[in-house]
């Protein structure tokens, strides 16, 4: 018999990071396994269908969404990137999720100019509104800072 599925819309922050669906899948599977064990992960049957522009679509077996919701906030790293995964919506079909995604289109972040902050040189990533991310320029470390336009002006 065909298994009924649920599709979960997940926001990936920061949205400008190049995260592949495969890496996201491994991180999610690890999170589910550490919390619910191998049998739990087998029940959920997670899959990452897409991950682009800070939005991912995760598939699971129906009635196991709660397990995915509990696991998503525990994912703190995908490959070498620090991330936050925030569940936004659940749907029974991919179409319904894509429709919902179309209802609230997001303006993508833009790579901006270089700035000096706290004595270090950073590249800015500006979002629609006030948010500004600073990426440290350097080979050894690429520290991220999360500020607002007002913080930069001060």
């Amino acid at each position, binding site marked *: 018999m065909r298994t009924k599925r649920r599709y979960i819309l997940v926001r990936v*922050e*920061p949205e400008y990071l190049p995260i592949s669906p495969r890496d996201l899948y491994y991180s999610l599977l690890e999170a589910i396994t*550490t*919390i619910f064990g191998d049998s739990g992960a087998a029940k959920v049957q997670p899959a990452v269908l897409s991950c682009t522009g800070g939005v991912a679509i995760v598939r699971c077996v129906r009635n196991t969404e*709660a397990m995915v*919701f*509990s696991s*998503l*906030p*525990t994912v*703190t790293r995908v490959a070498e990137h*620090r*991330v*936050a995964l*925030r*569940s936004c919506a659940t749907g029974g079909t991919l179409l319904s999720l894509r429709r919902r995604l179309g209802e609230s289109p997001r303006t993508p972040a833009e790579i901006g100019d270089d700035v000096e902050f706290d004595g270090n040189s950073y590249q800015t990533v500006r979002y629609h*509104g*006030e*948010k500004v991310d600073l990426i440290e320029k350097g080979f050894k470390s690429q*520290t*991220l*800072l*999360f*500020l*607002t336009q*007002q*913080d930069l002006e001060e």
Partner: protein
Amino acid sequence: MHCTDACVIPFPAGDTSIRRMALGAREMGFDSLVAFGAEPGVYHGITIVKGVQLEGMEIRQILGAMKRAKSDSSLICANAGDNSFNRALMNIPGIRVLRNLHASPKKSFDQVTARMASDKRVAVDIDLSSLIQLRGSARQKAIQRYSDAVMLQDKFGFPFTLSTGARSILEMRSGRDMKALCTLIDLPESGVEDALRAVGTLCNPEGPVKVVQ
């Protein structure tokens, strides 16, 4: 204050400014934050309550610190210790939240301490970062400790607060995520909602009835 994250640590201790945390909190559905190492204020419509953490102190030192902080309107929290330490903390007026229960010894928060917390209206903080960041036996211990606290809360009715201990916007979690995480420690949805509201009642405790003319 209907929905509060009871612990965030902004820049310079963290990597996110308090304004950016406030923006993030607004998007996640919060209306207030308790910030450690930041001044109180209102940013982007989010009320920032100053949090003071008393840690690594003996009871005598805590009493001294409390005298100094008495005039302040900040939310004073103390780290949990062994059983006798926790009982002594409950008797210090002004301490509103008992934090880091997951790192305290087993049976440090028993029925007697729970009853005292209920009588004195001292909240127990559920630090979700222990569920998010820890792995293996450390997380199992945290889940066990908080599940025990939830059982005691059912019986004695002391307040809970929920915190992420976020040093970064990436470590903050929405109310929806908090509800999902709290299923791991058997805290029901209504309990999570009460815990998110608890900071408001702790900051403005019910006083005696005043006659207004």
